[in-house]
């Protein structure tokens, strides 16, 4: 960059020297004159480059650049005259030539500085564009990853293969129930696949999807798994990011079923509190053997991440332990509209 800059000004020094020499100045006079002029213009030009690095005028006040260029050109010209007058103070012929050439020097300085300003503006414009493209690509990649990991999370291989195994068992003895379970599993998978990660749905829709999942799990685990679902008509109309609850409930079931021996009661309650939809999921656990985990623990980190991507908040998911009950609480803001 600096090298190009230097080369560019050397070329102009050479051109000016040549012109001045042909106009009748001595070579030494021409060289000194050109060098002083161009070095000062370079400094002025560099000033515009520096300022544009920190301050990019918007379209409305673009004329600032124009005014700024005129001012700098004026300053540069005055400085050039001052310095050259000092250097050639006893050269009458040169001094009168200098005086005569002031207007053209000012125009030259103005053109060069404006040219610099335009170039630096273009460079910055291009850099901004590249950055914004990179940012957009980053955001899209993140979104895709979220979708993929979401999919992986929705359909746990354990869940899928064990469900198929249950269907296989039912097919022999209770074919009607097998058929019903195939239906439920298909509806559940379809619901999982078609949904867009960013979409907001009504709580009633989300609970319907969740119910399919719970019905399948109940067939698998028989009488050990009991569920209670609490909500009211008003709450059912509230919005929630799609497929958010199922992983939380799956986590609660897994935790409840594998950490205790007896009956596992999963309680899901939904209510409205201020500007939030609050969903609380409870599962039993054994405080004496449950392992301490890092962070949120218990497989809730990806939910936390997703809520952060959607709302830029880290306080929407929390967990509590009360005696032998583990409670996961998720808060969904109702004011922000993130629908696409």
């Amino acid at each position, binding site marked *: 960059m600096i090298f190009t800059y230097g080369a560019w000004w050397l070329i102009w020094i050479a051109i000016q020297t040549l012109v001045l020499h042909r106009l009748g100045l001595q070579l030494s006079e021409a060289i000194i004159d050109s060098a002083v002029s161009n070095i000062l213009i370079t400094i002025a030009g560099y000033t515009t480059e520096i300022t544009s690095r920190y301050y990019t005028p918007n379209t409305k006040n673009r004329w600032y650049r124009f005014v700024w260029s005129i001012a700098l050109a004026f300053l540069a010209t005055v400085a050039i005259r001052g310095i050259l007058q000092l250097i050639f103070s006893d050269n009458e012929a040169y001094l009168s030539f200098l005086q005569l050439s002031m207007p053209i020097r000012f125009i030259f300085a103005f053109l060069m500085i404006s040219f610099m300003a335009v170039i630096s503006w273009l460079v910055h414009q291009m850099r901004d564009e590249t950055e914004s493209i990179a940012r957009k690509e980053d955001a899209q990649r993140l979104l895709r990853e979220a979708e993929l990991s979401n999919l992986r999370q929705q359909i746990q291989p354990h869940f899928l293969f064990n469900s*198929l*195994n249950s269907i296989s068992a039912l097919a022999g003895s209770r074919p009607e129930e097998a058929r019903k379970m195939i239906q439920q599993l298909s509806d559940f998978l379809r619901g999982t696949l078609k949904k867009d990660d960013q979409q907001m749905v009504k709580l009633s829709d989300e609970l319907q999807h969740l119910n399919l999942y719970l019905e399948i799990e109940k067939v698998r685990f028989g009488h050990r798994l009991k569920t209670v679902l609490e909500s009211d008509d008003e709450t059912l109309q509230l919005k929630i990011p799609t497929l958010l609850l199922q992983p939380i409930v799956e986590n609660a079931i897994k935790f409840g079923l594998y950490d205790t021996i007896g009956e596992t009661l999963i309680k899901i309650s939904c209510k409205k509190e201020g500007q939030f939809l609050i969903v609380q999921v409870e599962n039993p656990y054994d405080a004496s053997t449950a392992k301490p985990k890092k962070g949120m623990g218990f497989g809730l980190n990806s939910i936390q991440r997703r809520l952060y991507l959607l709302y830029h908040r880290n306080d929407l998911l929390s967990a509590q332990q009360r005696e032998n009950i583990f409670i996961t609480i998720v808060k969904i803001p109702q004011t922000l509209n993130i629908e696409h």
Partner: protein
Amino acid sequence: MIKVVLIDDEPLARSIVKEYLGAHENITVVQECNDGFNGVKAIMQHQPDLIFLDIQMPKINGFEMLELLDPSPSVIFTTAFDEYAIKAFEAHAVDYLLKPFSKERFDKALQKWMQQREQNKTEQTQKNTQALVNETRSPEESSRIVVKNGSNIRIIPSQDIMYIEAYDDYVKIFTKDTYHLKKKTMSHFEEVLDKVDFLRVHRSYILNLQQITKIEASEKGSHIALLKSGVKIPLSRMGYGKLKEVLGV
């Protein structure tokens, strides 16, 4: 009559095994269990010839259950999806059924077991199973240890372990107020326990680093670690070096 015990936490998963076994008149299901605790009891009580065992189960998983049994029974694993376990099964030529499995595949596994039994290879397959159990690490294992005393099974969270001492073929696992015996090697625990919290400081000792209050020089230039409970643990020269490195002194 061949005695079989089924251990799976999903009733339908047990019922399909029972259904497939129904075709074999010389086989009887003596008990069905829905978790590893009941599994251990049933196996001790009935001494079955063969067990069908799921891996992911409440409280203790299938591998942890087998750890508690000596000698280990003949096992056919039934599992839905365990990438790490399947590799281990294949490495040790222990038979396994991936859910859902067909009757043909099931019969083949049973056939294979019966052949081994006739050729008196049962002992070998039991050894294979034992080797498998010794080598397979489920994610839970670094955070807890399952021990059995008579028919009592206890799950010890690893943070409750103060230290482990070698004891012939066994190890003594010391907790706050008691110790538990387990037939395992020191190197097994060295491998399994979380390396941030536990360190082998001596041929015969693994320490929970959280328990150390002081390291003292003793006679003959060797060192001992003083635990919160007041117990003194000898450090080997290498153990002392490792400990200094871990504690950053």
